[in-house]
């Protein structure tokens, strides 16, 4: 049985995701790891970043000494403003999301099912303080919902599953999952491997996840299985 070696780093994965974002897209990067994607979009490529706290055309973190506390992202980190930016209130911001106007959002996940169900807001643990934020609105709102996550948890439990056991964020909403070892499309027949990273093979992924995986590679790589 093939074993998965170490996969892409988060920064490498963010760069890989950035490559798939067409110029002109309006993109929401949620909070946490997906926000790394912003740094990987080339300066001369016009991708419009939406932050749900009321802004389009968000720019990168400010240089030291130029933090404007009135200008933050959904993760409450200081950001900047790009030419072409706009501000709006929360109802308008979520109208953009719920109304299907965002092209892409990239979210983290606890679990993704082969039907595209997403669980990313609550572990279900009895003592956990639940906090959902804008995750459910993004999950049902963006035209394409991509997940950026490790394939496995620290204790090697797969995050890609046949059925989510954690409380759901949205049903059938995820279209693609970017992990450290491979990219998966969600198809009517379940997970399809779109791309393999490093030494990963479909066999190794199957062994690690216990899932039935289809080969859905659009551009087979020389070093693929």
């Amino acid at each position: 049985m093939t074993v998965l070696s170490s996969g892409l780093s988060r920064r490498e994965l963010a760069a890989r995701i950035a490559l798939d974002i067409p110029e002109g897209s309006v993109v929401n990067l949620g909070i946490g790891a997906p926000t790394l994607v912003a740094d990987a979009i080339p300066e001369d490529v016009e991708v419009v970043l939406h932050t749900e706290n009321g802004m389009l055309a968000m720019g990168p973190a400010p240089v030291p000494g130029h933090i404007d506390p009135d200008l933050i992202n959904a993760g409450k980190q200081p950001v900047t403003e790009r030419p072409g930016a706009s501000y709006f209130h929360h109802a308008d911001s979520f109208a953009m999301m719920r109304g299907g106007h965002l092209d892409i959002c990239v979210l983290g996940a606890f679990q993704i099912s082969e039907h595209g169900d997403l669980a990313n807001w609550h572990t279900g643990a009895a003592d956990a303080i639940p906090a959902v934020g804008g995750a459910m609105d993004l999950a049902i709102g963006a035209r394409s919902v991509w997940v950026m996550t490790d394939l496995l948890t620290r204790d090697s439990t797969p995050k890609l599953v046949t059925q989510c056991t954690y409380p759901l964020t949205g049903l059938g909403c995820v279209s693609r999952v970017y992990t450290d070892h491979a990219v998966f499309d969600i198809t009517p027949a379940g997970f399809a491997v779109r791309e393999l990273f490093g030494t990963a093979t479909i066999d190794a992924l199957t062994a690690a996840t216990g899932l039935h995986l289809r080969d859905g590679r659009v551009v087979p790589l020389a070093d693929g299985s």
Partner: protein
Amino acid sequence: MISKVCPSVAEAVAGIEDGATIMIGGFGRAGQPVELIDALLEQGACELVVINNNAGNGNTGLAALLAAGRVRKIICSFPRQSDSYVFDRLYRAGKIELELAPQGTLAERIRAAGAGIGAFFTPTGFGTPLAAGKEHRVIGGRDHVLEHPLHADYALVSGHLADRWGNVVYRRTARNFGPIMAAAAQSTVVQVDRVVELGAIDPETVVTPGIFVDRVVGVGERTWLREGAFVGAADAEGNPNPSTIESRDENR
């Protein structure tokens, strides 16, 4: 002559009753009406129901109100933050009630209250625990749940500038919940950096028209602004950081 301007934050929050439902603007620190919250703390109303996106952070502002035991229940979307230890402790001790809503549903319920909408069907949350027990309907082939408006007795909002009629403009992402909360409450109190002359705000740029505002109070410009322009002088928490102030004239 219409003048909604209050001479002090104490007068701006006068009359808020025990048990009142209070919307408090802000997303994290941005747009949080800290001076009004401090005045409310001083004023003494208790058994409050608070509607805010978060549940306070650090020890000041909303967190201080919670720490003082004045809040019975909080309605929010994201109570858990790295420094939301005040809420966390109260919640775990069973000393505060939590109603959690998806952020967009929270915003739309507030908007619905201000707009006189009786209820609305939204696809957000369908199939999740946050839709449990809510009326469900398939519309256009898509699953929706029914959500109801969130009204409040008071809204405490932080803006940038206002005139004596209560027309308000905000700064950047500090706008967030301010405009919809101002419209949803029976009585809306807005703190601003500066109160300006009637007519000084371009009518095309007014974000919250005075019709939604009952009281206005000026609390003074933040250290990182000068005449409303950013001069760079704060850390991410909004604490003054004078070493980074650009050509700030201390005599102003």
